[in-house]
């Protein structure tokens, strides 16, 4: 792969998200997504993955706000934009797919109308043209009999089909960035693979930057180019998927990997390692390394201050004083 020379597609710099004036839920977050690249954003539930995605989209709930840092999409700082300007980007230059396809579509509108709507919001298109394009999009996400499904209401479609509709809506205006928040978690295992495959092929065809939020490392290994590991509102490790998963540097990443079942059911005797303790809630995060209370390798300096981001090889960083992996 040739490195992209221009500014990255999405650059999140030192982002913090607060609840009112309270403690930050997400702090000093840094990561980038390049054009045509798939980045897997992983972490346990409650670590701030979805919050980050919503912040990028400008969809944080009213009582939440980004208190510092910037989110740059194609060089434009989104956090500095007003709601009106931001609206021009949403659904257009960047789009999002949600976890729960059963509730993501309006139950009283036909699926076709919901695709047409986004086209007409961002493109000067007549009704007939938008309908034609919508049917093409439904075909593109491989919905059989797209022209007929166009007139169906969401409740007539299965979860997988609905997720395809949500994807069609997301890619309708050829966005540069697609954020998928646990897009397969709510689906049957067989359907999961199909949806991932679809996302991957759409991403390749359109040179999309794909930010895939998931807690499933298998999914990341399968689709992503790079991985960003979040813990308690911060990025703890970042790098190329194979490098990170084969040789985790941060004890948390290592713990996550050890906590997954290896291979098949034949390995029945194999005991699943899990990480002791639980993710601390934002108001009781430790002053030092965030992972220190649960870390088996913690030493005195871990309690003193947050470890800085340090480079750990090419295009790779980790926030740890005592990385566990083999040195690169």
């Amino acid at each position, binding site marked *: 792969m040739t490195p992209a020379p221009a500014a990255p597609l999405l650059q999140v710099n030192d982002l913090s998200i607060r609840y009112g004036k309270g403690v930050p839920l997400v702090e000093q977050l840094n990561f980038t997504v390049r054009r045509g690249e798939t980045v897997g954003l992983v972490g346990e539930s409650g670590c701030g993955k979805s919050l980050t995605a919503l912040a990028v989209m400008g969809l944080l709930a009213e009582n939440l706000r980004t208190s510092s840092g910037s989110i740059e999409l194609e060089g434009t700082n989104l956090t500095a934009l007003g709601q009106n300007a931001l*609206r021009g980007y949403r*659904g257009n230059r960047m*789009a999002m797919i949600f976890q729960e396809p059963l509730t993501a579509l309006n139950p009283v509108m036909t699926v076709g109308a919901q695709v047409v709507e986004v086209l007409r*919001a961002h493109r000067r298109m007549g009704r007939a043209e938008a309908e034609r394009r919508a049917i093409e999009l439904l075909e593109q996400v491989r919905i059989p009999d797209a022209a007929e499904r166009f007139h169906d*209401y969401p409740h007539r479609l299965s979860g997988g089909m609905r997720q395809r509709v949500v994807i069609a*809506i997301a890619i309708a205006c050829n966005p540069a960035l697609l954020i998928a928040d646990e897009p397969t978690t709510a689906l049957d295992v067989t359907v999961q693979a199909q949806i991932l495959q679809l996302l991957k092929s759409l991403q390749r065809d359109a040179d999309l930057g794909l930010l895939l939020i998931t807690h499933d490392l298998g999914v990341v290994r399968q689709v992503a180019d790079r991985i960003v590991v979040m813990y308690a509102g911060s990025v703890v490790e970042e790098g190329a998927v194979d490098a990170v998963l084969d040789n985790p540097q941060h004890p948390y990443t290592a713990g996550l990997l050890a906590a997954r079942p290896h291979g098949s059911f034949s390995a029945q005797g194999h005991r699943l390692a899990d990480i002791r303790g639980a993710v601390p809630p934002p108001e009781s995060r430790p002053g030092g390394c965030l992972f220190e209370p649960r870390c088996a390798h913690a030493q005195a300096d871990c309690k003193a201050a947050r470890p800085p981001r340090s480079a750990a090889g090419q295009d790779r960083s980790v926030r740890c004083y005592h990385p566990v992996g083999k040195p690169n």
Partner: protein
Amino acid sequence: MPRYVLRRLSQAVLVMLLVVIGSFFLVKMAPGDLVDVLAGNSDMTADQMASLRVRYGLDQPVLVQLFIYMSRLVMLDFGYSPLNAAPVLDVIMGRWPVTAILVVSSVVISMTVGTVLGVISARNAGNPIDLSISILMLVLYATPSFVIAICFILFFSVFLGAMPIAGFATVGTQATGFAYAWDVVKHLAMPVAALCTFYVAIYGRIGRASMLEVLKLDYVRTARAKGLPERRVIYVHALRNALLPLVTMAGLQVSALVGGAVLIETIFGLPGMGRTAFDAVFERDTNLLLGVLFISSLSVVVVNFVIDLLYMALDPRVELA
């Protein structure tokens, strides 16, 4: 679809049957009968009364009378109203439109106003606008329609002298066309408004709660993620879903409004069904009372049936099995 409609129809028929039987026995509890009422207005001998009872079938056992009554109902024969010296059906047909105008305009107006206030309230949840609307709702919710009616009369007619105090139109008016319509509107404005206030509060409160609920749902977030204008997110995506519980409410409202019309028509001297029912009770005109109960119940059943169909049109998830 046809199966569902058939089931609903058979339920409606059953309900009407119960209404007929119930109101028949209620009226039978009254001391004296139709002939007593007729005799009260004239000098009648016992013989004449007895022959009238035979003529009206009042000498028959109660169940036979019920059967006769029901078989006449099927032919839309409601009998004779001594009070009005006319067939009950004619009396009702003359009065029915007044109540229909009152009820229909009240439903439409209260639903619109209530929904708008509810949406405004929900979008400003927690701030002073929401608070003042909520307090207004609370007061309207606690004030009976006849108290509102009296307040209106006091303020608009007595103090300001701006509105006609009673009647359907100016007595002896020669106006036609638009001038007549305007005269009627002026006469009906206060009665309709008085019927509305309580339901403005109900729709407002349900609308607010329903809107707050819907605004939290995933598809509203999807709509925002599409970059739609906020107006479209609120009025197209959220409102249509938030309206569903309000539509259900409308069915109950129609029945209550027909009842409430008794007070309002009496206060404003309007020749409608409610007023007729009240007079029928006072004058012991049992045929007329039965007729009014039957026709108003029938109207409620029909309206509810229509509302059910409307609901299915609004919510595609209601499958017509």
